[in-house]
Structures are given as C-alpha cells and as structure tokens.
C-alpha cells in the first residue's frame, strides 16, 4: 500500500493491520538486542573514558596532560565522523573481528565506536559539574583519588550522569535504525526495505510508531530515575 496511489487515511489504518507488523515484530527484537548490547558497551566504555578525561585534565585529580590531550584528540576525531561514515568505516573492522561485515553483531562495533566517545563527553561534562569544594572536603579528610572518584564524584553527579546516559541511549536507537540500511537488520532495515524500496508505506508507519514509543519510553525512564534521586536528596 503506497501513499502514491492510496489516500493517507487508508495507509494509516493499514499500518495497524497485523499484516504490516508481521515482518516488523522480529525486527523489533533485533533492534532491542542491538540497542541493549550497545548501551551496555557504551555505558562501560563511556564512563571509563569520561572518567579518564575528567581526572587527567590540568585541574583534575590526577593531572596527566599528555594523556588528556591525546585521548581528547582521539575522541574529537571519532566524534567528527558522521554516523553513516562510521558504519562504513567499521565494515573492515567488523570483518576482521567477526569474520563478516553484516548482521546484528557487526553493527554493534560501529555503534559502539560512535557512541562511546559521545557518551564519554557527556560523562565528562557531568563530572566537571561537581562543586570543587566537595572534592576539597574529601581530600581534606584523607580520601584517596579512587575513593574521591567512586564515593564522591560519581554519586554526587549521578542524576546528571543518568540524564546523559538517556541521551546516549536515544542516540544509539537512532543510529541503530540507520545501521539497518547497511545490513544490520532491525527496525531500520524493515523501514528501508519495505517502506522505501517496496513502497509499503504502512510498514514504514508501523516502524515509526515503534521508534517513537521506544524513545519516549527511554526518555521517560531516564527522567524518572534522575528525578527520584533528586527527590530523595531533596534537591528538587
């Protein structure tokens, strides 16, 4: 059913028809799998990279200027690549690691390479928000740098870190849909193959519903988690 020869209203109704969802439902699971794995990798990688960027800067806990500058340069390089180019660039890398350049797992490499640097910058900006006085107080009590990072800096900035992670998850979702175009599978793949190449616009609509619902859900959960923490601490 195409918008070219069918009224919008009929396509809209057809998008709720089980026929439109038949190929979409398995793709949803693929997407959730990709997003899930990538988010875990992004979370771990981004927090580690963001922490290193924060503590090694000139005014940080453990200033190591050369490390900070070189990591920062690498992050900037990775971030300057548009996601589509990153996906293409990672094709040989995926072939090297996994033996094949298509499929769900191959795409995760590209997603992580693009999302880790982005989330690392969000982590960095959250961690830099902490009042310097709190770190001073922790230092004055004889805390080690490790204790300051894990007992003070991360817990104190947790609501902001959660909001940053929410942004990152949503970026992962949108990039997953893009990766569908390059043989990753998932919702993006269905939307392109059916909705674009075969003019089955009802499937395209259905794919849009799923993506919108997914993003709304993530944003809602992230906001709620951050709000619960702030409420508990009586900061709002």
């Amino acid at each position, binding site marked *: 059913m195409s918008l070219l020869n069918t009224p919008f209203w009929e396509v809209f109704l057809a998008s709720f028809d089980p026929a439109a969802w038949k190929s979409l439902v398995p793709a949803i699971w693929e997407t959730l799998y990709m997003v899930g794995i990538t988010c875990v990798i992004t979370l771990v990688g981004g927090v580690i990279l963001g922490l290193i960027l924060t503590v090694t800067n000139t005014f940080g806990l453990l200033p190591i200027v050369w490390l900070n500058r070189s990591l920062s340069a690498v992050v900037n390089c990775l971030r300057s690549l548009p996601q589509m180019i990153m996906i293409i660039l990672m094709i040989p890398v995926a072939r090297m690691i996994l033996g094949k350049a298509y499929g769900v797992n191959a795409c995760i490499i590209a997603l992580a390479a693009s999302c880790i640097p982005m989330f690392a910058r969000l982590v960095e900006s959250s961690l830099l928000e902490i009042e310097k*006085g709190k770190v*001073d107080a922790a230092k004055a*009590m*004889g*805390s080690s740098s490790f204790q300051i990072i894990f*007992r003070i800096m991360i*817990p*104190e900035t947790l609501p902001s870190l959660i909001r940053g992670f929410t942004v990152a998850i949503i970026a992962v979702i949108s990039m997953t849909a893009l990766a569908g175009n390059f043989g990753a599978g998932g919702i993006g793949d269905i939307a392109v193959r059916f909705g674009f190449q075969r003019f089955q616009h009802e499937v395209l609509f259905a794919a849009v519903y799923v993506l919108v619902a997914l993003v709304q859900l993530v944003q809602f959960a992230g906001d709620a988690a951050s709000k619960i923490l702030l409420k508990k601490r009586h900061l709002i």
Partner: protein
Amino acid sequence: MNEYIRIEKLRKTFKTDRVCLEVLKGVDLKIEKGDVCGIIGFSGAGKSTLARCVNRLEEPDSGKVFIGDVDITSLAKRDLNIERRKIGMIFQTFNLFESMTVKRNIAYPLEIQGVAKARVKERVDGLLELVGIKEKGKAYPAQLSGGQKQRVGIARALANDPNVLLSDEATSALDPQTTLSVLELLKEINQKLGLTILLITHELEVIKYACKSMAILEDGVIAERGGVDEIFSNPNSAAGRIFLKVYQDMRRNPSYSGGEGI
C-alpha cells in the same frame, strides 16, 4: 612555649597564563597546642590560601609546615592522606555531600578507613549529640539550614578525632545569630577535646568572640601576632588599626551588623 603548629617562610604564587599572583610572601606563624588562633585579613590577603597550605589542599612553593613533629610539607601522598585524617577542616560553603544523609556524611571519613560498622555508628551518634543535631541524622543536607549544615560539617571534621581544626571562613555565610552559636560550639569543642583551632575570618567580631590569640595577615605576610586583648587595645599594624576602627564604628552603630552587634 608549647608550639604545636609551626609555619615557616611559607610562600605561594598562583600562576595563570599571563599573571603571577604572589599570595603568600613568606609567612611565619607559631600556634600553641589548644589555642584558638584567629587569622584576619582583607579579601585577597591570602588567609584561605594559608589555611589550605596547612593540609596541602594548596601545595606551597616553598617553606615548611610542621604539626607536632611532623613536617607536613615533605610528606608523600600516602602519608599525607593519613596525616590529613588528623587535621579536620570546615568550609564557608559547608561542602557536604548531597548524595548522603547527615549520618553518612559524618561516617564518611571513618568509612574510607574501613572502621567497623558498629564503631562508626557509635561514633556518629556521639558526634550528632555533640554538635546538637541529634534529630537530623536521617535528613539530607539540602533539608538543613545553614547553621545545621555547618554543624554537620563540624561533626564530619571531628569524626577522626583530629588534633587540629582548620576553619576556612566557616561562619561567613551565616547570619549573626547562627554565627554566634557555631562559634560557641567551636569554643566548646576546643575546651572539651583540647584541639587546636586555626580560624580564618574577615570579621574582627568573630575573633573577639572566639579566639585566644590572633594574627593579622596583610599583603602576604603576618603583620601582627599576639593575644586578642593585646592587639585590640594596641594595634601596631596599619591593617590592625583599620580593622579595629571598623569594628568600633560598628559597635557604636549596631545597625551595621544586623542589629545584634555580636
């Protein structure tokens, strides 16, 4: 003389890209055990920097700081962390950890050393009682008033049973009434626990009320040092005379300082 804290020829310069700001230009100061020593100076005189050099939150460029027999300035990082546990510090902005309840804030300095839970609990309860906020243990810092926050700050600074308490403008963000009660608490702690207090302030009233001895820091050096009554009756330095004049003007005109004229 039983000198406990000895600061010798302490120098500190802050360098930014273009300017060099020499804040401490060779500070010499001796403080007896059990003293409450007030350090007063104009904004930018280097008071806070001086206090922060004592526990090396700022690294001095040269000079020495001794507490007891320990040369703080030559300690390696690990030893410094152990020594810092014996130097409590309270701040103008309180710097409580907002992710923790009052109890956990006070327990933090003990927890990072791995003190047993039961002992931590006992100690925290005792400290809450000492600073007079027993009922606030389960509250979060954001729920407290300024005076209560500073009481938590004091309890936290005392958790390790320190020998020295550094007070960096601890009452400057508080109203006169609360200032008075916090100073009262500091005096009480000084008497009960016998710890030496270094009290940084820009208000002569605070010194008059709480300190046994005082020093005037002017332009990066100690301009005057002596007993509080001594300096109040006969200030020798220019800064001392200005502070005293403002202080006397305020007394004559209580509306200056918010009515109470503490």
